[in-house]
C-alpha cells in the first residue's frame, strides 16, 4: 500500500505534467484526485499510479459571477472531465468563454495541464493555487 498523496503533492505533480491517481488492489478502480479510500469500493488497498491525463468533457459552465478573490478571472469555464481511467475531475477549460457558450463542447477529447493562479485568504494552500486546465484536442 502506498501512502496517500497530499493535495500539495498532487498539484506539484500536475504542475510537472504528471497526473497522480490511486489504483485499488481490491476492485481495480482508479481514484483521482487522491482520497483515503477507493472511490468505488472504499478499500484502503491503494497503489500510486500515473494516469494518461486524457479524458472527455462530460459537462461545463461558464462562470460570470465569481466569488470574492476570483473576480479578475471571470468569465471562466469550469468543466467536469471523465478521465480515460474512469474518474471524473474538476478543472477549467482552456477555451475562449464565447466559444464555450456557442458550441456544445460535451464529448470533446481533452488533455490535462496545470496553471498557477493567485491564491486567496480562504484557499487551503496559502502559498499558491494550482488549477487543473483542460486543453481540447483537435
Amino acid at each position, binding site marked *: 500500500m502506498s501512502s496517500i498523496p497530499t493535495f500539495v503533492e498532487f498539484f506539484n505533480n500536475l504542475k510537472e505534467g504528471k497526473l497522480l491517481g490511486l489504483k485499488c488492489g481490491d476492485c481495480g478502480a482508479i481514484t483521482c484526485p487522491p482520497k483515503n479510500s477507493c472511490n468505488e469500493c472504499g478499500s484502503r488497498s491503494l497503489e500510486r499510479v500515473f494516469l494518461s491525463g486524457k479524458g472527455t468533457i462530460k*459537462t461545463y*459552465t*461558464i462562470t460570470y459571477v465569481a*466569488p470574492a478573490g476570483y473576480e479578475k478571472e471571470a468569465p*471562466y469555464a*469550469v*468543466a467536469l472531465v*471523465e478521465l480515460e481511467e474512469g474518474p471524473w475531475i474538476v478543472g477549467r477549460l482552456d477555451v475562449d468563454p464565447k466559444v464555450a457558450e456557442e458550441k456544445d463542447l460535451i464529448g470533446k477529447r481533452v488533455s490535462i495541464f496545470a496553471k498557477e493562479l493567485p491564491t486567496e485568504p480562504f484557499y487551503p494552500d496559502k502559498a499558491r493555487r*494550482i488549477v487543473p486546465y483542460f486543453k481540447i484536442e483537435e
Partner: protein
Amino acid sequence: MRRRVAILGVGMTKFGRHSDKSLVDLFAEAFWEAFKESNIELKDIQAVYYGNFVGEMTDGAANLSGFIADEVGLKNVPAIRYEGACASSSVAFREAVRAVAAGYYDCAVVGGSEKLLTAGTGIGTRALATAVDSVYEMAAGLTFPGVFALAARLYAKEYGIPLERLREMMAHVSIKNHKYAAVNPKAQFYGKYGDLKVEDVLNSRMICSPLTLLDCCPMTDGGSAVIIAEEKFAKDRVDTPVYVLGTGQASGGALFRQGKDMIKAIPRRKAAEMAFREAGIQPKDVDFVELHDCFTIAEIIALEAMGFFKYGEAGYATLEGRTSIDGELPVNPDGGLIGKGHPVGATGTSQIYSAVKQLRGQFHGYQVKNARIAMTDTLGGDFGTLVEIILGVE
C-alpha cells in the same frame, strides 16, 4: 421506545434585507413568533438547536448558540449550533426531533438565521462556495450556481433533452415559484415577479451558463424558528399539533466523486426512502412539498430523487402543470427558495414554517386545499447533506 413528536408553534422573519439586525436578532424575532403561538412558558424549553452555515464569513460570528439562547432569556439550557451547509436548520430539526422522541427533552426550540444579502455578492458567493470541495473544486473557482449549471448541462445530455428545451422547463419552475412568492408576505419577492414569462427567465443576466439570475435563488437575510414537544405536552397546549411522521438524512462526497450519478442525487433518494419508511407512507400519499429549489434545475432533480417522478421526467411534469398549486403535487407553494429567499441556515425551518401553516389551513398566500401530509426537502452542499421531513395533521 420512541415517543411521538409534534410542532407547537412556528415563526419566521420576513425574508429579504436586514442590514440593521444581527444573526442573533433575526433568530430572536422568529423565536418570539413561534413562542407566542406555542402556549408555553420559557422554562418549558429544555434545549436550543440552531442552524447557521457561514456566520464566520458574513458576520464574523461563529460561537452563536449560547448567545441566541441568552438573547431570548433561555438561561443555561444546552444550546448547539448545527452546520449542514444549506440544510443546517433541517439537520438541527432532525436532531431535536430525535432527542425529544428518545425522551431526553419534552420541549425544545429549533431554528436558524443567516445574512447573505447584506454580505454582498462577492463574499456571499465565496461563503456559499465553502460547501464545495475546498481544494479540488475550489482550485478551479467552482461556485454554487456553477455546481447546478454543471448538473443542468449533464441532465440535458444524459436524458437526451435539448438544452434549450430543458431551459424552458427550468424557466417554468422559476415562473411558478415566483408566482407563489409574490403573494406570500414573508417572501423576499413579495409583490414582485408574479407574472414572469419564459423569455424573462431566459434573457435575465447570465450567472453560470445555462443558469440566469432568474434560475437562481437570491441572496437573503432572515431567521426562522420552530418549537417542538412530546405528543401529550403538545396536545395539552395547542389545538392543532402538527406531527413529525418521519425523517431521513443521508450524506455524499464531492460533486466530482459522484460522477454522472450527481443528477440522480443518490443521497437524497436514500434520505427520502428513510423518511417514507419511518412515516409508513409512499410518495403518492404526500399532499404537497416544500423542496430545495436553490436553482430551477435543482427542483427538477429533487422531484425525481424524492420518488415523485421517474428520472428524466420531472421537467416535463413541470411543463404540464403537475407541480402547480392545482396539479397533482403542489411544489413550493410558499415560493420556494427562488421566490421566498434562501437565508441558508434559516431555510430548513422556514420550509417547516410554511408546511405547518399550510397543514393548519392558515397559510397567507396560495393555500393547498385539504392538505393532511406535507414533505420538506433540504439540500446542503453539492448533494452532500440531504434531509427529508414528513409532517402531518390528524
